[in-house]
């Protein structure tokens, strides 16, 4: 019985959709690909030109002050970064960092307003929540395909795929953080005659800050994981070393590049977390 239903050509539809979007919006995609691609390349190259020891010292200093003048994180950063340099992965690290930086920056800039929208309107919440679920559960690799169609290969499609995959947490946490602000504080704000935006900026966002920062932390970590995957579509960085090690079945180089990613992940994670604890 079931065999009698002809196969629905969903895949073809999506193919057509992606093709059409690529065509229609090429006037947007192409400049983005060029302009943003140039920005990414230049940033990474300039970063790679800075003498490594300066970056290492800077990172260590920031770590020291962010963690409340404790030495642990600073020491870890120094040792970890020297290790990466020693393994001749420094330039790759700079590229990976650049990608993560821009990808999470875009995620946060777009994600927070959506989170605010969601917190203010139940209708928006009901529409956006399933979209976020979809974005997060779809295997990350799948995003690479339309990303390539839209933006060719290289860093830009990597940032795009990462944006799709990593934005949901910051949206969700912003929504959650604002909705968690106690009724009494919201009432207090209203009772003093705040406008909507006064309430948002003077009460809700400051109250939700910790929660939003937890979302930012997750978003950054997800975009790091995505940036590694993005090496499959030609994004440079540590991920590319992992990928080529995989293709050549070289466990050693694979792990070394993997360590580099782990070190970067730990440093970024502790940095974003202590931003939260600060003040």
């Amino acid at each position, binding site marked *: 019985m079931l065999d009698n239903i002809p196969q629905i050509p969903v895949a073809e539809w999506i193919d057509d959709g992606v093709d059409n979007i690529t065509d229609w919006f090429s006037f947007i995609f192409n400049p983005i690909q060029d302009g943003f691609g140039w920005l990414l390349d230049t940033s990474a190259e300039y970063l790679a030109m800075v003498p490594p020891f300066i970056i290492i010292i800077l990172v260590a200093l920031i770590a020291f002050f962010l963690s409340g003048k404790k030495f642990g994180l600073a020491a870890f950063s120094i040792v970890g970064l020297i290790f990466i340099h020693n393994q001749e992965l420094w330039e790759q690290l700079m590229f990976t960092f650049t990608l993560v930086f821009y990808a999470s920056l875009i995620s946060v800039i777009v994600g927070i307003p959506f989170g605010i929208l969601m917190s203010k309107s139940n209708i928006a919440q009901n529409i956006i929540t399933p979209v976020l679920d979809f974005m997060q559960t779809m295997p990350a690799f799948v995003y690479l395909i339309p990303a390539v169609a839209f933006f060719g290969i290289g860093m830009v499609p990597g940032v795009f795929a990462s944006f799709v995959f990593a934005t949901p947490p910051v949206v969700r946490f912003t929504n959650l953080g604002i909705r968690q602000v106690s009724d009494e*504080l919201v*009432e207090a704000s209203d*009772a*003093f*005659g705040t406008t909507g935006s006064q309430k948002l900026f*003077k*009460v809700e966002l*400051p*109250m939700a800050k910790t929660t939003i920062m937890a979302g930012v932390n997750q978003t950054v970590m997800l975009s790091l994981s995505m940036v590694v995957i993005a090496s499959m579509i030609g994004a440079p960085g540590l991920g590319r070393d992992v990928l080529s090690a995989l293709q050549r079945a070289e466990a050693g180089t694979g792990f070394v590049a993997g360590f580099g990613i782990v070190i970067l992940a730990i440093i970024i994670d502790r940095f974003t977390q202590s931003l939260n604890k600060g003040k």
Partner: protein
Amino acid sequence: MPIKVENLSKIFGKKTKEATRLLDEGYSKEDILEKTGCTVGVNRATFEVEEGEVFVIMGLSGSGKSTLVRLLNRLIEPTEGSVEIDGQNLATMNKEDLREIRRTKMSMVFQRFALFPFRSVRENAEFGLEIQGMEKEERSQKAEEALELVGLGGYVEQLPSQLSGGMQQRVGLARALANDPEVLLMDEAFSALDPLIRKDMQDELLDLQEKMQKTIVFITHDLDEALRIGDRIALMKDGSIVQIGSPEEILTNPANDYVEKFVEDVDRSKVLTAEHIMKRPETVDYDKHGPRVALERMREQGLSSIFVTDRSRNLKGYVTADEARQARESGIEKLSEIMKTEVPTVDKDTQIQDIFNIIHDSPVPVAVTEDGKLRGIIVRGAVIAALADGNEVDADDA
């Protein structure tokens, strides 16, 4: 007339039309909930609050007090009725006008303080002024004045979490006062405080009120509090106001069984303890002072005897004016030689009836002590007055 409320209702739920109709037909809050799923929050409240008056709204939990007070500044949208402030109807005005009223004419103090934890005490007190767009310098100054007024002048830089509950609520009060509103809405503002601090805050509110003459709508579920601070009291039950009157009227003339029940527990002699009626003691120091000082103090204060303590306020005894005079004439220098050591004492939790029995045949006031230290004195008049209050209520109950 600062506040005039007419037929003000709030029905929570979807079928408010049907619920209103059922209310008209005389159905109870419970029936309406069962039939329509709607909760009657406030049912046709009508009252007026005079300028400079402390208007207390009292009732059991769920009787609609919080809803009513939030209808006054429209934190809750009314289902029906009107709220007039200075002749403007709040219930129908547009958003901008409403904001203006909230910014300038009425402020609210909350049960659990509702301070902004990330703002310092000063920044909290500034909040209302900041919202109005006042310049930083001017609003800081006004906020500090308000904080000074509630006795927190030295804490402006602290965060709310660094303060005790009583102090936090002072910040809440200062935040409300900084706007210099005509009307203060206080929803169980002191209920979260422990009893002693609560009493202090009541006193302080009364002091402030004497100076400022605001119109205050004060919510409480505590009759004692209502009696202490209210010029008039409105009693609520199931969303309706069942009686409005002065404390005296409410106590002596309960409108119905519900009010009577509420009032019944206030047999003052059972509730009040030594602590409530004691006064600050006038004393002389055993080691430092002689009969001359004792006499001088008694003369200043118009006393016929005075208590004697040591340096750390441990009660030692008392001397009478007659004996001090004789001692002075015969050149005795030490109080210990003329002092009587048999002092009637009670502790601060002794109930008034028991104090009455002690003070009845005592020549001197009763001393209130705690671990041997003198805390206060009770004079006979205070006991009798307290007992008389209680008996009046009892007589009406019978």
